[in-house]
């Protein structure tokens, strides 16, 4: 590579966004910043399409996403009303806001998500110890075996497969949905960031202790071991903020 060829740092990744996504992002920003305050009405579909230079279908799709996130409500024949996102915003809002287009994370949002992750996974471990059927225990043991078979220099990962199995074993569907939310956000994050966040997750002895606690119905130990795995990154980030 010649010395005046662009290095990896010179060009930031360009995210390919659809037209509807671009319109959605602008409207979301306007709403969250208060430029379009709660209670106000968005311009008509036709007006938005005209000013953005896009077709009405794209505007309609953007409005749907805003509705899904709890930012607006669509009133038949009466236009689109902006809501108070603090009261009506759903987790969909977080899915859109947590990861920036370049793959970096909003620090405040990520700490919040990771703290909630601890609460969910620790209780999921507790419930799994109480309720996991034999097949679930076998699955966790299989996943643990796979973990142990990894070479020592394999990159650290957040071990989604293991936690997904554990959350499923807990029998709590709300926790499954919460986990899916976290997974969806993590999927947008760069590998390096994920590895940083997973720091400490390569604690095979805790995964082993957690698995055995679940297998033996010891909910207290299961909760403690789960906390030992997912807690440290939160403590690290809390200490830094």
């Amino acid at each position, binding site marked *: 590579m010649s010395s005046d060829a662009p290095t990896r740092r010179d060009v930031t990744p360009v995210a390919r966004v659809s037209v509807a996504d671009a319109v959605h992002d602008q409207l979301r920003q306007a709403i969250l910043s208060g430029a379009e305050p709660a209670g106000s009405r968005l311009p008509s579909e036709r007006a938005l399409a005209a000013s953005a230079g896009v077709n009405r279908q794209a505007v309609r799709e953007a409005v749907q996403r805003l509705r*899904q996130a709890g930012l607006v409500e669509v009133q038949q024949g009466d236009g689109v009303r902006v809501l108070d996102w603090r009261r009506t*915003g759903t987790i969909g809002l977080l899915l859109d806001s947590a990861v920036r287009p370049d793959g970096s994370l909003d620090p405040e949002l990520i700490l919040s998500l990771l703290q909630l992750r601890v609460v969910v996974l620790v209780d999921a471990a507790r419930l799994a110890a109480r309720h996991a059927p034999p097949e679930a225990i076998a699955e966790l043991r299989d996943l643990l075996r796979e973990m142990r078979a990894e070479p020592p220099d394999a990159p650290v990962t957040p071990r989604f497969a293991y936690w997904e199995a554990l959350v499923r074993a807990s029998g709590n569907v709300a926790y499954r949905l919460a986990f899916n939310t976290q997974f969806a956000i993590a999927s947008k994050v760069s590998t390096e960031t994920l590895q940083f966040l997973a720091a400490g997750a390569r604690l095979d002895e805790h995964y082993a202790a957690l698995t055995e606690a679940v297998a033996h119905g010891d909910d207290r130990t299961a909760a403690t071991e789960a906390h030992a795995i997912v807690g440290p990154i939160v403590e690290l980030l809390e200490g830094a903020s």
Partner: protein
Amino acid sequence: MSEPSTSEPRLLHRVARTSVPDALYAQLRDAIVTGAYQPGDALPTERELSASSGANRLAVREAMQRLRQTGLVEIVHGGGSRVTDWRATADLSVLPDVVAAADAAVQQELTTSLARFRLVMAVELGVRLARRVAAGTIPAADLAQLQQLAATADAATGAAAVQLGDQFWDAVYDVLDDISYRLVNNTIRLTRQSASTPPARFESGAGRAAMVAAIVAGDPAAATDAVLRMFDAVL
């Protein structure tokens, strides 16, 4: 609005006051959640849906888009749509829609799991707020407001109790000022509102005043006890 589901989903035989896409979305959603369509099943094509329902293609497309955004269907290669296993792939925001469509057994499953989720979040926030009081970082006015809302909610009965309970928790989440907790709380509130009969499990028992007292005293352990007692009645 929706007619009772039979094994064969019937599409849009009655146009309600809601928009055509919304009505079509609701009927397909109901069919999926009640199991008339199973995970992995292909939905009819846009053309087929348009023909059988009488709705135009644009309305059908909008309904399908909403189903995708809700997490109930996914696009497959070739452009068709397939029903997802929503428990395995959807995020929390699917809950209000699922609860609106669900039968009693699924509603029970959802509300029980949500009650537990609320409990662990409440324990955590009780601890966090108590610690912040001990560190002196919560304004006295905020605490006074929580005390007042707690007392009012504890004393209320019937429909007012639900409303005041919401106001109390909203105020607590405002003071906590944690975005994930806030958004999850919103989703849980919306889910309760979507349920055809508001389930008792969404209420926490009286005892909010005790929880706030523990927070005001800066005592995390007492806050945890108070929360557990509050939810004990509903779990």
